[in-house]
């Protein structure tokens, strides 16, 4: 080199990398937490949906499946231990998911302190997500609470026998309780939208596919969302319209 320049100063990488909080509390870090927990929830939801379809096999089969969940792994594992491992994992995932969602939503509100006076409809690739993710999430939370009171604890369900899952499902969606079915379907729509965006969004957050694969992930997301919504919806519809009894 012809120029002879000596002393060089630059920021130390260590200094540069010092985040206000650790990397996992950064926007992207939280987003990764949300994505991983979301994916766990998706897996649960898919399994749950598949399980629900046992309704169509009749009372015995359905209740056996429910009992099976409790006795899974016995005698190697104590009674209900598998179920509790699943539940704890699920609760942890849900809490992580909700916590990260709340923190990020608050940060997003701070990031846009003054609203625009004029707004056009969203035009982005996942434009529906703008309106549906957060509102949908509230619907889902309400639904989950109801769902637990109804089918898990049976507080609001006429069938109190914990072992009669089949009966509880039939009771809750019986034709005269049609508003429950409507609410259930509404929550499903919210869930569908949540998944349609959530699944590809999680993949984008975790693995950052290229443009081609991003398109494919979006298609897969939509397909999964449709299958999940259909799979869940078919049960209450079948009960309400008395195709199962």
């Amino acid at each position, binding site marked *: 080199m012809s120029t002879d320049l000596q002393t060089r100063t630059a920021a130390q990488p260590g200094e540069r990398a010092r985040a206000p909080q650790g990397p996992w509390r950064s*926007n992207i870090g939280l987003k990764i937490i949300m994505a991983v927990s979301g994916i766990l929830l998706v897996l649960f939801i898919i399994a749950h949906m598949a399980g629900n379809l046992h309704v169509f096999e009749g009372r015995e089969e359905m209740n056996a499946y429910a009992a099976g969940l409790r006795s899974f792994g016995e005698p190697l594992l104590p009674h209900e231990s598998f179920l509790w491992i699943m539940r704890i994992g699920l609760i942890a995932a849900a809490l992580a998911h909700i916590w990260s969602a709340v923190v990020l939503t608050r940060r997003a509100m701070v990031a846009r302190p003054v609203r625009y006076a004029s707004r056009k409809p969203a035009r982005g690739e996942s434009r529906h997500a*703008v309106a549906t993710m957060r509102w949908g999430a509230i619907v889902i939370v309400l639904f989950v609470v109801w769902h637990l009171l109804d089918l898990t604890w049976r507080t609001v369900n006429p069938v109190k026998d914990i072992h009669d899952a089949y009966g509880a499902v039939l009771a809750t969606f019986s034709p005269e309780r049609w508003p429950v079915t409507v609410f259930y379907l509404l929550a499903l729509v919210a869930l569908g939208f949540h998944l349609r965006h959530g699944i590809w969004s999680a993949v*984008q957050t975790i693995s950052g596919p290229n443009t081609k694969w991003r398109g494919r992930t979006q298609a897969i997301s939509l397909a999964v969302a449709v299958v999940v919504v259909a799979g869940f919806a078919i049960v209450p519809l079948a009960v309400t319209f008395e195709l199962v009894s």
Partner: protein
Amino acid sequence: MKLSLRIWRQPDADTPGKMVSYEIDDVSEDASFLEMLDVLNERLIAEGEDPVAFDHDCREGICGACSLMIDGQAHGPQAATTTCQLHMRKFKDGDQIDVEPWRAGAFPVIKDLVVDRTAFDRIIQAGGYISAPTGTAPDAHAVPVPKQDADAAFSAAACIGCGACVAACPNGSGMLFMGAKVAHLGLMPQGQPERHTRVLGMVAAHDEAGFGGCTNTGECAAACPKEIGLDVIGRLNRDFRKAAARAA
């Protein structure tokens, strides 16, 4: 043509602003949006009023100085076009047009339509470079770069730092801007040694400046005048995950 404009007027950072209406006649179809504002300003000055302040410089769509939320769309209705390159033939006689500044906590309003975008510079300071002090470089042909990588790096590097992505994002996030730089430098072999520290530093500066997080809605990419795609955000996420895992 004749237009009614509603423009955000705010005398300084500390005084609250409001939308003010102006009627303007005889706007030429061939004028650019900023030239239309020039004409309005000439009139305001003649009437002894304070002209509307807005940022601009090159008026060629490359410096990134111009901004403006036009009818709720960053840089207006035409895709891949900065405000300075937007021409009035895209509007109709009698249209009402709302003009607002970029709105983000990280971009405080200085006056009228002028905002402070130095947060972007701070993100670059936190790692958006390759350390190559003058005079230390090997011959330019010492390291070949596959054409696809060079082209992809260029596409990301085409970002003009205008901030439309932040303005359009429902979360006021700067991820597209940051992703564009991370992708540009991360695609070049010269950028590898600092790849991890770069992304951690930039993300920290981004958050500290008060930008929100990304929800992958794609509003940024739709508004970006340089058509930077969401793939750069994917790269940013990926690099960040690896770097954070290594740092942990």
